[in-house]
């Protein structure tokens, strides 16, 4: 059985590492890739063509909306989830135009919710 590939992009390294390890426990059939930068994320996307990308909206190098927009071209089959503390109207509009599968707001109080949202999107 093929592993489900998941890519986590967030500059909060502790957060994605924790989520990654958590997923390894509760969902052993997931193969989780993590990175702290958008550029790196795009490279992994191209190489791995993951089933799902979970990307932070505001990052130092490339913004999340740019990553998901490019992901659409690089790997059209990849589902896209944006994770953010807040959005403004302009970004929300942009995200709607790009088309994403879900948006999750930080801070995530219960990892289980995150896990179930991921599972839901992957289907």
């Amino acid at each position: 059985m093929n592993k489900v590939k998941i890519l986590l992009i967030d500059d909060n390294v502790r957060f994605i590492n924790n989520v990654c390890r958590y997923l390894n426990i509760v969902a052993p059939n997931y193969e989780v890739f993590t990175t702290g930068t958008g550029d790196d994320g795009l490279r992994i996307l191209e190489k791995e063509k993951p089933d799902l990308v979970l990307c932070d909206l505001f990052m130092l190098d490339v913004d999340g909306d740019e990553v998901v927009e490019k992901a659409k071209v690089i790997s059209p089959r990849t589902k896209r989830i944006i994770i953010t503390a807040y959005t403004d109207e302009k970004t929300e509009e942009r995200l709607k135009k790009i088309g994403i599968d879900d948006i999750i707001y930080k801070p995530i109080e219960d990892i289980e919710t995150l896990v179930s949202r991921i599972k839901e999107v992957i289907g």
Partner: protein
Amino acid sequence: MGFLYFPYSGLVNAVAALAVGIFVLSKNFKSSLNRSYAIFAVSVTIWAFNYFIWLMSKEYTQALFFIRATMIGAILIPAAFLYFVTKFVETKRAWVHILNIVLIAIFVSFSYSPIYIQRVEHRLFFPFWPVPGWLFHFMLAYFVLELVYAHGILWNAWRHEDGAKKEQIKYVLFGIMTGFIGGCTNYFLWYNIPFPPYLNILVSGFVVFVAYAIVKHQLMNIEVLIKRSLIFASLFTVIFGVFVSITVLTQLLIAGGRLLGLAISSIIIIFTVRPLEDFLIRITDKYLFQKKYDPLQLLKTFSDTVLSSVLDQTAIIKTAVDLLIKALGLENFAIFLINKDGDKYEVAGSSGIDTAISFSGNSYLISYLNKTTSLIGRKKYESPELMQDMDMIKAELCIPLVFHKNLVGFLAFGKRKSGNDYTNEDIDVLVPLTRDIAIAVVYARLYEDVRQKDKLATLGTLVAGIKHEIGNPLSGILTSTQLFMKEMEGWDALGVSQKDRETRFRKTLEDVLEESRKISRITKKFTDFARPGDEGIKEKVDIADSIKNTLEILENELTLKHIKIEQKITSDAPSIFVDKDQIHQILFNLLRNAAQAIEMSHKSKEESRISIAVEKQVEGKVAIYISDTGCGIPEEKKIKIFEPFFTTKQKGKGTGLGLAIVRQLVGKNRGDISFTSKEGEGTTFTIVFPVANNE
């Protein structure tokens, strides 16, 4: 020689009466009041001028002719005066005037007959004094009755009028009493009482009082723009008099002394002109202009002050109170404004009034002001309830503050220290002034409201920053703990050793501790930025520290907008003596504006830059430069950027107060702010503060 006093008193009376009569008529020929005064003045002139000729007469027939002509004037005077009085106090007595015309006709038609004046004969030192016929006694009775009647009308009007009119009536009354007391001394000799008309000159007293009432109280609505012209006319008269008398005297004393006389009078004139001029200016200022104030100056001072402090209601009110008390010489004064709930009018600023007094919307005073939106004087309106309200605030005059038909408040003017009442002239000045106050107050309140909204917007930025900054460590804590708990569930099944368990436990605690410390630092950073309640306390502030602190607060926003910060702050940057929170607010607003300007310009990341520099200047000043590479300010908008409510941002993005507040705060801390900007290239704001003293 002393005898000459009597004829010349008549001449002076005639000239004075005629001069004022012509002056009054020339001011408003069409006014029936002015005309009635002129008729009276002409009557006095007829009487006084013939009086002069009669007393100067050298022969019997001439004297008899002119004393009879004199008495024609005397017949006309009381009726003419009564006519003037009825016009003056605006009352109609048609039947009295008709009766007077009939009486005048009778007396005048007999004035050249012996039943009126029998003959003239020698009395005291007068060679030709008249002997009355029987009709004369009736004339005198008519004369006295008319005068008593006219006085009665004036007295009655004086009691019921107020303000300027009351003052005017007072002077007319004084004047006519003086004039007739003087005139009456003419009649003792008619009845063989040996008292010559010593006080005849007092007839001119009437003219003096009327002239004074014209200048001071706009009697007959005459506005006299004198000062200079009056002073020089008087000066000229005095000098001319001196010149003439000295020339005449020296001619009399020194035979052939015309030249010497000229020389002496010239010397006197040369040495007396300046002091005389000063003296005349002084007395005119003292007695005629003493209590006057320059209404234009008052309005100008007020609007200047209001414009410079237009955003601060307290300052506006204080300015208005100080200015009005000083200009009008008020014993007490108060400005009442509607409160925030809109149900009560409370004292906003006052002097000599209990500040705890307030009026509800249904009090008599407020209802009246609301209904009429016009001012209330003291005696015109007799409602005792209204007067009671006025008494409570010791008000002589209340003027409403109206803005768009809403009663914003009112001004309560107390008694004036001079004892003068409020004149129409005062009210003409005060009404536009109150309009200014009303607009300024409404504007200041609006500003205060929007400023609250702006504070909320700033708070929004801060909260977003806090949320994001705390969000990261919080996510770390939340996920670390949950991960640890999830791992624990599997420990037994996996047979994890005690030592590994402890290591794992310790590691999680360390992570949580580290993230918690981050949160603690963030909260400290934000509380350092603004300490509520410390407003206005000035201290020595390190500029570099303040900039660092503000940048930390904005770090989140700057990062998200990919804006680089360049700092050129030398280590020896001086400290400034300011309110620290206000400096933070100034820097915060300017830096946030810079960031927003860059965002609006859609520049590339490489070009998105804010530079901050601090530079010591000469003369104990230090300048802070904040430059951005943003969109810049279009030329036509440059003059407006510090104005409140002006914004270039999208609708709903800015309140338009940021820079207005910055300018206000910079001013409060004795600083200056300026800027240079080029559209499309960026803007540099420069704020300059005095360096803190070293002690």
